């Protein structure tokens, strides 16, 4: 799979970019129904589609799917491009490609599908946070965001929680190295286990105290036991 992508990138890299004049000429031919001109326009701009797709590769979607979606966005842009407006094609296509990829990411990433209102709330929350930070220099609290959006704190928190990117426990632990043998579940800390350092310290201290206990007189040892509510101690045993 990785080999296929590599050869695809190589093929994409070989296609020459278009000049402004060539873009206009091709656009005119596309308008007159020239299919070959359309194909050439798409091929010449596929590099842009790939570069945008790559930017979203860390959002939990396959790069191949992202490239496919960005290519669909590119095709849409080619079909709708109006050369008369004077913009460069890449400027126009960028937004179509980006929209297409974003829609795919929103629909595919994460195992929890969010309803439209939740996505809307998240979008508004991000926008609001940016504006707030710009104006006051600090990030707003979740309570402030909830108040400004006219929702409750618990609703906002549950939307944020649901929108969090899910990670497969069997997936690679390092996103930068998908071929790594280390799995995510191998890297997670088991909080139920005692801390190794404190266990070593405790064992050492237990040993020290145990040594000290052998220096107690029988009277001291009995008083200590009675005070601590311990029935009996075999301090000569080698259980530690």
């Amino acid at each position, binding site marked *: 799979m990785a080999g296929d992508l590599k050869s695809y990138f190589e093929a994409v890299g070989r296609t020459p970019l278009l000049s402004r004049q060539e873009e206009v000429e091709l656009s005119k031919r596309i308008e007159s129904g020239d299919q070959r001109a359309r194909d050439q326009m798409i091929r010449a701009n596929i590099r842009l589609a790939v570069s945008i797709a790559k930017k979203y590769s860390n959002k939990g979607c396959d790069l191949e799917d992202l490239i496919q979606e960005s290519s669909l966005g590119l095709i849409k842009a080619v079909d709708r491009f109006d050369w008369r407006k004077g913009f460069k094609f890449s400027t126009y296509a960028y937004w179509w490609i980006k929209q297409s990829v974003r829609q795919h990411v929103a629909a595919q990433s994460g195992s929890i599908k969010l309803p439209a209102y939740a996505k809307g709330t998240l979008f508004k929350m991000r926008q609001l946070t940016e504006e707030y930070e710009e104006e006051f220099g600090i990030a707003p609290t979740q309570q402030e965001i909830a108040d400004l959006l006219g929702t409750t704190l618990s609703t906002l928190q549950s939307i944020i929680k649901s929108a969090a990117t899910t990670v497969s426990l069997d997936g690679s632990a390092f996103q930068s190295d998908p071929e790594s043998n280390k799995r995510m579940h191998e890297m997670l800390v088991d909080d139920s286990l005692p801390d190794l350092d404190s266990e070593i310290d405790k064992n*050492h*201290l*237990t040993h*020290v*105290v*145990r*040594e*000290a*206990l052998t*220096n*107690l007189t029988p*009277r*001291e*040892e*009995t*008083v*200590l*036991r*009675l*005070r*601590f*509510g*311990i*029935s*009996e*101690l*075999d*301090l000569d*045993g080698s*259980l*530690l």
Partner: protein
Amino acid sequence: MPMPKGFKAENGYATTKQFAGGDDYRSIAEKMTKDGYKMNHATARNIFLSALQKIARPVHGVHNIPVSGDKLLKTAKDPRFQVGVAEILNTIHSRQK
């Protein structure tokens, strides 16, 4: 009339409530007297603190704390130290079971 200013231990006092099944000094004195070690509650307390000071000495060494009579007594009286020692003794006891 203001209350007289008394001594207040820095970290409070250890009580029998902190040691499940532990006896107070009077009960310890009674039991010890029955077993042939005649003593009153104050002696029971002194013996208890003396035992704890013996334990505190090597612990001070581990943590590089100066070993002097005052400091050892202060550690022995510290409820946190007493709870810690009780915990260790309970660990030893439970491993022996």
